[in-house]
Every structure is written in structure tokens, then in C-alpha cells.
């Protein structure tokens, strides 16, 4: 058995490293750079029922050790994703996690029902935390009852396990995690971006056309670590951790905090080869440190024996 193989609800992963949603499109571009088969999984760009153009540009801005984005869930819509993107991606031997978004419960349910029926999709990631769309989004991600209700509705129709993606823009992350656990979530992915803004000194106006955007990258890593540390002790759900990962040390830190797998977002932009590089380095790190299996590290910062809930046996 490999040191990296990881089993999570619905997912058997060669390794626990995957690109985060929105930072990898539907895989086409990166497939020109390396063989996608090496990846643990792929979290595809958020899919909504109808095609969306998203927000006006500029959509990104740089910040100290981070970046802001306000893409606004641009995507070709459910139909094209089903017909074009998923079949194309299925040529690779890599699990697909479909990121599902919407403006109201019905949208989420509709997309979840259809896309979870695709033979190419192994799990859903419920995006209840996108800060960059006018309607919906925010309340689903910040009000526990609303999040729980949405999770339940989606679980009723989904044919694959449902991971709920938590927003860090809340007073109490544990409350949110417990609410979606109550709602029947099979796992958590965290964290989405922190709401932020930058102003252009030349124009005096926000750099992003959408004004505010989501902060990602190394700057937010301490917030992600703290939230995973808290949530992993209070729920039984597996956690796919993300937020500022760019080195193998970061990955270890996420595991120690309580993650069962990790996703890489922004770092794909600074180094498009980051995922295969980290997969290799993680294996080497474990070997050099005589760790038999990566899951042994999960939760070690708060539990002597680690969490070990999702061990690959």
C-alpha cells in the first residue's frame, strides 16, 4: 500500500492532493502541461444551471502574500459541463469532484441531481460560500440553519457523497460545520476565500470591478489552519483542507491541524506544476521522516494518536 493512498467517502485517491475548484478550470489547460493522471482528484470549476459570464473585469488583484478574485462563478452551465467537460475529463484515471453552485435552493438541487448522476462524478462539493455573487451564496454560507437545510435538500437527490465547502467569513465555524453535518453532509472542504478588497490609488476606486473579492493564498493559511483545527475536533466528518498551500510543509501543517486530504488553489497560478511537484515531495517527506502513511498525521496537533478516521487500509 502506498503512503499516500487515501479513502474518503465516494473517493479512492492515489494521493490526497488535488487542485481546488476555480483554479484549474475543467482540467483542459493543465492537461497540456502534465498528465492529469498523477492527481489525487480534480475539483472542477463551480457549475450552475445556466451558463454564466460572471463579473466584469478586472477580476483579480494582488495583495500581500495573497490575491483577490471576483470571477463570479463564470461557467458554461450544467448542460455543457455534462456533455462536454465531464466526458472529456473522464479520459483520465482521476476522480472528479463537481463543485455545485446556485442562487437558491432549487438551483443547487437541480444541478446536484443532474451532475451527481453523471458516471464521471465521484462526489459533489457544495459551494455555499462563494463571496462573489450578488444573490444567494452568502446566506447559505453564514447562517447555520440555512446551510443545514440546503445540505439536506441536496443530499436527498445526490447519487454521490456530498462535501460542503465552508466559508471562513463567519463568527463561528464549528457551528456551521455541525449544522451541515446535521444536514447529512458526507465531508467538509475548507476554507473558501475571505472577503477582501483593494483600492487603486491612481483611480481611487476598488481594483476589482465587483469591488470586493475573495482573498486566497498564503496570507489566509493561518485562518484555514485554525478553522480546521477547531472543526476537526468537533465533527466526525472528513476534511479536505485548503487555503494558501504552496509547500509540502504547508500540507503537513494542514494534516496536523486535522485535514484528511488537501486542495491547492492559488499556488497553481504561481507555479502551474505545483500539484505534481507536491505529490512527489510529499511522498519523499514521509519516507524521509519514516511516516508509514500520511493519515497518521491527521489531527496530531490535538490528539496524540491522530484522528485516523479515514485511514486507507
Amino acid at each position, binding site marked *: 500500500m502506498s503512503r499516500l493512498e487515501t479513502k474518503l467517502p465516494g473517493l479512492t485517491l492515489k494521493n490526497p492532493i488535488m487542485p481546488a475548484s476555480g483554479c484549474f478550470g475543467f482540467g*483542459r489547460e493543465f492537461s497540456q502541461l502534465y498528465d492529469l493522471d498523477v492527481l489525487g482528484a480534480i475539483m472542477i*470549476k463551480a457549475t450552475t444551471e445556466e451558463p454564466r459570464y460572471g463579473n466584469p473585469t478586472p477580476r483579480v488583484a494582488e495583495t500581500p502574500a495573497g490575491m483577490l*478574485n471576483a*470571477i463570479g462563478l*463564470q461557467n458554461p452551465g450544467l448542460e455543457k459541463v455534462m456533455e462536454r467537460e465531464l466526458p472529456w475529463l473522464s479520459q483520465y484515471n482521476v476522480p472528479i469532484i463537481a463543485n455545485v453552485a446556485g442562487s437558491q435552493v432549487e438551483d443547487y438541487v437541480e444541478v446536484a441531481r443532474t451532475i451527481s448522476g453523471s458516471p464521471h462524478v465521484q462526489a459533489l462539493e457544495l459551494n455555499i460560500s462563494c463571496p462573489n455573487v450578488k444573490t444567494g451564496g452568502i446566506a447559505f454560507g453564514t447562517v447555520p440553519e440555512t446551510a443545514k437545510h440546503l445540505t439536506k435538500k441536496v443530499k436527498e437527490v445526490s447519487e454521490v457523497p456530498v462535501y460542503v465547502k465552508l466559508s471562513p467569513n463567519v463568527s463561528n465555524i464549528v457551528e456551521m460545520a455541525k449544522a451541515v453535518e446535521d444536514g447529512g453532509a458526507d465531508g467538509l472542504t475548507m476554507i473558501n476565500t475571505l472577503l477582501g478588497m483593494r483600492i487603486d490609488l491612481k483611480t481611487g476606486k476598488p481594483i476589482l470591478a465587483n469591488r470586493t473579492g475573495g482573498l486566497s493564498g498564503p496570507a489566509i493559511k493561518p485562518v484555514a489552519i485554525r478553522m480546521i483545527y477547531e472543526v476537526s475536533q468537533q465533527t466526525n466528518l472528513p476534511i479536505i483542507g485548503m487555503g494558501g498551500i504552496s509547500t509540502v510543509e504547508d500540507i503537513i501543517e494542514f494534516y496536523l491541524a486535522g485535514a484528511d486530504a488537501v486542495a491547492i488553489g492559488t499556488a497553481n*497560478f*504561481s*507555479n502551474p506544476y505545483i500539484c505534481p511537484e507536491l505529490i512527489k515531495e510529499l511522498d519523499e517527506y514521509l519516507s524521509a521522516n519514516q511516516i508509514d502513511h500520511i493519515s497518521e498525521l491527521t489531527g496530531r496537533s490535538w490528539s496524540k494518536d491522530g484522528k485516523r478516521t479515514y485511514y486507507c487500509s
Partner: protein
Amino acid sequence: MIKKEWMTVVSQQNIAKNIYELTLQGELVQEMNEPGRFVHLKVSGQTMPLLRRPISIANIDQTNSRFTMIYRAEGEGTKLLAEKKAGDQVDVLGPLGHGFPVNEAQTGETAILVGGGIGVPPLYELSQRLNEKGVKTIHVLGFQSADVAFYEAKFAELGETYVATVDGSLGTKGFVTDAIREFNLQGDILYSCGPVVMLRALEELQLTKKGFISLEERMGCGIGACFACVCHTQNDPTGTEYRKVCSDGPVFPMGEVAL
């Protein structure tokens, strides 16, 4: 093919106020086959600045595996780039995007190349290739003022060259369109790169039947994956059509994208 390489600085020169000419060497140059494409640079091995910077390829020298960029040192990233000295390494991803189609101009035809500010650089490689093919080139270069102007002489070696400056300190006082009108410039095909206002003015001018313009947009990935750099297409009733500047562009046929 897109590659990522630590390339070596051959030379770095300050050629006008805050304007630098940087020549790098490495294998990646063998992939550079078209004028108007760009590279995406990580200017520091550290975390900050986090994002890569898109810079056009201004001159390709495949024999020596070298290429040249010209850029303005303005923000955090380009200022750090300007500190690189011969022998230093730079992390280059490229070549990216689609460039200016040289084949759209026929031997014997006249091409008008219009550049504004730091939109001028990619036109230099383009002009050389057009001239090699026997296409006559006319160059119109617009700058804020004389102190930030560059490469006028180099372009002049390749064909008629007109300069416009906003403050009139060099050439025609005003914009590139003023110079075009003043000298009644005409040609078969237009190639342009510069600020959107300039591109829009050129589109309205309808100087040639055919034209190609190069756009700028803030980028995330630079390879088409993140949807940071999209623009609308013209005549799109649904409003959901788009092009990605980084991978569909940065060069588009005039009339294709909404400016």
C-alpha cells in the same frame, strides 16, 4: 509547447524613463514561433509578489536562444524585475497565448503597426517578420512624452516611423490617431497593441479592411484556466459569449471582442 524554465539574464538596460529592456537566454526560446505572444514571469523566488507578470515578447533570437522584453518598472513586481542583473535567473512560463498572424499580410502589401506606450514592444518582432516576408511596414508609435519614448530608431530601420506624444515633446502632439490623420497614412492591414482607448479609436477609424489588436487584462493563471481575463465578444445577444485574453488572445481580429 508551453514550458517553465529558469532563464538567465543576458542583459538589462534602462532605455527610457522607467523603461527597461531585458534579454533572457534559455531553451524556451525555441518554442517562440510567433510575434505578439507573451511570457508570464515570476520575478522573485519568494512568496511575494505572489502572481506572475505577463510581458510581451519583443524580439526573438533563436540562434542564440535569446529573447528580449521591454517593460515599464512601475509596481512591486516590475520594480523587482528591474533589479535583475546579467547572470541572475528568472522563472519564465511561456510562450503563452496567440500572437499576431503574419500570414494575414501578403507580400507586397502595406501593414500599419500602431503601438501605444508599453504596447509598442511586441510590434518590433512583428515588424521584422513582416519585412522578412516582403510586407512594407509603417509604424506609428504613441507615448506620453519624449522621456518615456523608446525604439523609434529601431523601428525606423524597418520602415517609415511616426511618433506622437501627448505633450508634443516628440513628433506629432496628440495621439496616434492624430499622427495617422496628419500624415494620411494608409495600408492594407492594421496591427495594433496599446491601451483600450487607443484600440477603440483605431476601430472607429476603419483605416484598413483587416486588423488585429492585442489586449491587456489582469491575469491569474495566464493559461486559460481561471477565467480572470475574459472579455465579451461583439454582437453577442446572450451576453455569455467570451474570449480569454490569455489563451484565446491576447491578439484578436478587429471586431471580434468588445472593447
